[in-house]
């Protein structure tokens, strides 16, 4: 596959977490408002791109037996960088995302891409893969967060968009709404791809 195909597969064909059902915890937990979803997505993208980059560079150096531990150390280092940068420059967002920033370490998408892609492919392809997957993840999180914010609070990125007599369904901002909403979006994606194939 060419570099551009590596990039675009993360945007629709294998878009996480809708197609590649991994990394569900941050997906469900932080998507209560559009900007939280966007922030989490960008933080994950940063870690994904740089961990893919470094692991691809080190792929011939890391012994096969300890590769998972080595990947985790690489990923954790970039997560600490993100954590400290966010604490310094976007403190309100850091507060909202809370425990889910350190938990980027155990986001299965990142370890999954390191294991399945970056440890076997060249530098540029790995960066393209990380960037594509990261942007796909950001788009998914932003979409899910916007839907939940719209129905649960009547706003979109903080701006009122629903008619004035609209009663928000506050359950959408709570855990049950998160699970229901993601379940229905997955069902909708299945429906769309079945249509594309012409069934």
């Amino acid at each position, binding site marked *: 596959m060419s570099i551009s195909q590596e990039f675009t597969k993360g945007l629709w064909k294998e878009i996480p977490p809708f197609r590649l*059902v*991994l*990394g*569900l*915890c941050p997906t*469900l*937990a932080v998507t209560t408002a559009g900007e939280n979803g966007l922030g989490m997505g960008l933080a994950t993208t940063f870690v994904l791109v740089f961990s893919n980059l470094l692991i691809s560079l080190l792929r011939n150096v890391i012994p096969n037996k300890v590769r*998972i*531990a080595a990947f*985790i*150390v690489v990923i*954790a*280092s970039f*997560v*600490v960088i993100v*954590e*400290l940068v966010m604490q310094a420059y976007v403190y309100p967002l850091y507060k909202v995302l809370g*425990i889910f920033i*350190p*938990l980027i*370490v*155990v*986001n*299965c998408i990142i*370890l999954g891409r390191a294991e399945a892609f970056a440890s076997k492919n060249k530098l540029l392809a790995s960066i393209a893969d990380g960037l594509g997957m990261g942007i796909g993840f950001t788009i998914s999180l932003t979409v899910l967060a916007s839907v939940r914010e719209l129905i649960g609070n009547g706003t979109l990125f903080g701006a009122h968009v629903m008619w004035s007599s609209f009663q928000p369904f506050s*359950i959408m901002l*709570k*855990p*049950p*709404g*998160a*699970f*229901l909403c*993601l*379940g*229905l979006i*997955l*069902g*909708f994606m*299945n*429906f769309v791809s*079945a249509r594309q194939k012409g069934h």
Partner: protein
Amino acid sequence: MSDYLLLLVSAIFVNNIILARYLGNCPFLGCSTRIDTAIGMAMSVVFVIVMASATTWLVEYCVLVPYELEYLETIAFILVIAALVQLVEMFLQKSIPALYQALGIYLPLITTNCAVLGVAILSIQEEYDFIQTLVFSFASSVGYGMALVVLTGIRERFAVSPIPVHLRGTSIGLITVGLLALAFMGFIGLV
């Protein structure tokens, strides 16, 4: 004593680690199709979460805090957890083969279960002492196991249910978890 009881009930039912705190969802959905797999996974999770929280608590207060290295918390914890899981696996294989047979295949998966790291970090954030950490981690993991077994019980019935084609698989699983979470919200008034 009543403090500990309160902590126990709150971590199992009210702030259930999956249904209210959104931790450990990937193995939750992945391992909930057969009841014996679910029980094996639930037991290993209890075992690992309690051990990992106790160890990371000691690492935090015996190593990181005295040397002012708190910013290394994330790296230190994940390494401790990964090493611990590996050690437990080797120990069980050598000394308690029967238990290894039962839990062995789930152990490597647990390193990337965010519930383990999540509970460890939460215990530090809530500033629990050592006993509270033990109680909290035990209760959280029991809550995890309970939710896992309940969901598996429901999902086993899916085989004979007329589910719309496009919702089959993970999709209907998530919707079921949503309804389960709705039911668990009823516990909010309890504590």
